[in-house]
């Protein structure tokens, strides 16, 4: 029996699919990054308002804006969400923890943005309130009171823009 000489095959690597996959992954990562950014928004049905404007139409500064969201829990309770911190609105009475957190944020903004008090003691730091249209007012009021006590008067209510009829 004679031994055959091993047949050597020349290897050619096609780069096209590699580039395809890499560009798909890149696109994926970019999109996921964008989704992660908007994922901090609590999903809710916002109230409709025909006078609502978008951020670009708003002429005043939005720098340092604080976003306060009222999030409905599975047990129908509501919790306030500021940045990534959640606050029970009843715990401790008078939403103390939320108020204290907001006051800390105001202090930080004062230091970094040189925010000063207006003539009546309020701060011009913008606060965006994201509250679902079906939220009961007794819960909304707790958030409002916390804002008032932190002397945040420049509020922006998040809304769905509807066209005028």
């Amino acid at each position: 029996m004679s031994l055959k000489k091993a047949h050597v095959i020349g290897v050619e690597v096609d780069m096209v699919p590699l580039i395809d996959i890499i560009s798909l992954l890149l696109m994926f990562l970019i999109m996921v990054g964008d989704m992660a950014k908007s994922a901090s928004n609590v999903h809710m049905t916002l109230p409709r308002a025909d006078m609502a404007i978008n951020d670009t139409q708003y002429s005043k500064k939005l720098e340092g804006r604080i976003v306060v969201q009222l999030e409905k829990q599975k047990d129908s309770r509501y919790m306030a969400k500021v940045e990534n911190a959640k606050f029970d609105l009843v715990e401790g009475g008078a939403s103390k923890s939320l108020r204290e957190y907001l006051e800390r944020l105001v202090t930080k903004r004062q230091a970094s943005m040189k925010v000063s008090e207006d003539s009546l003691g309020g701060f011009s730091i913008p606060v965006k309130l994201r509250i679902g249209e079906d939220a009961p007012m007794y819960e909304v009021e707790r958030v409002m009171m916390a804002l008032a006590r932190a002397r945040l008067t420049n509020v922006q209510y998040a809304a769905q823009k509807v066209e005028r009829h």
Partner: protein
Amino acid sequence: MARKKIGTGEHHGGESGSAHGDRPWVFFMVDCFFLITQFFVLTFKFKTEESILPQHLPPGGTVRPTTAVPTNPKEPLRIHVSSGSSRGTAVYDVMNTKVTLADLSSKLAAIVSTSGPDRYTVRISYDTNAQWGDVMAVINACTKVKISECGFVPLHGVDAPGGGRV
């Protein structure tokens, strides 16, 4: 000697030593592409534009202002929101006149037409179970007639859960 691509399927049997048998490499790329596309299709959501309704709360609110109040305070315009059986059926009491949401803007426009919108500050009160959407409609109507200050009259007494403590 002619060079051959790996995985083209030519002369490859199932046990040929190739990791993917006799399936061409392009199958796997197409599989990947379909999986990624499937992911995007399943997770796709229309982006709804979120707008804002800017307002300036009356300074101080229920908290005493740290400095002196203005010498010519604005005239308070009181509006009470009574909760309806469902969203959009709330009744609005504007200076002791009950109106629906459809008539609210015209009522406010009539009030501010005499002395201008800057003369007024709106104080919104509401039933305990009134919904934010119904109350927000008042702020929207105020914006429409160019009243820049809208504040809330807090619930007091036993009506509010927790005995009115907020």
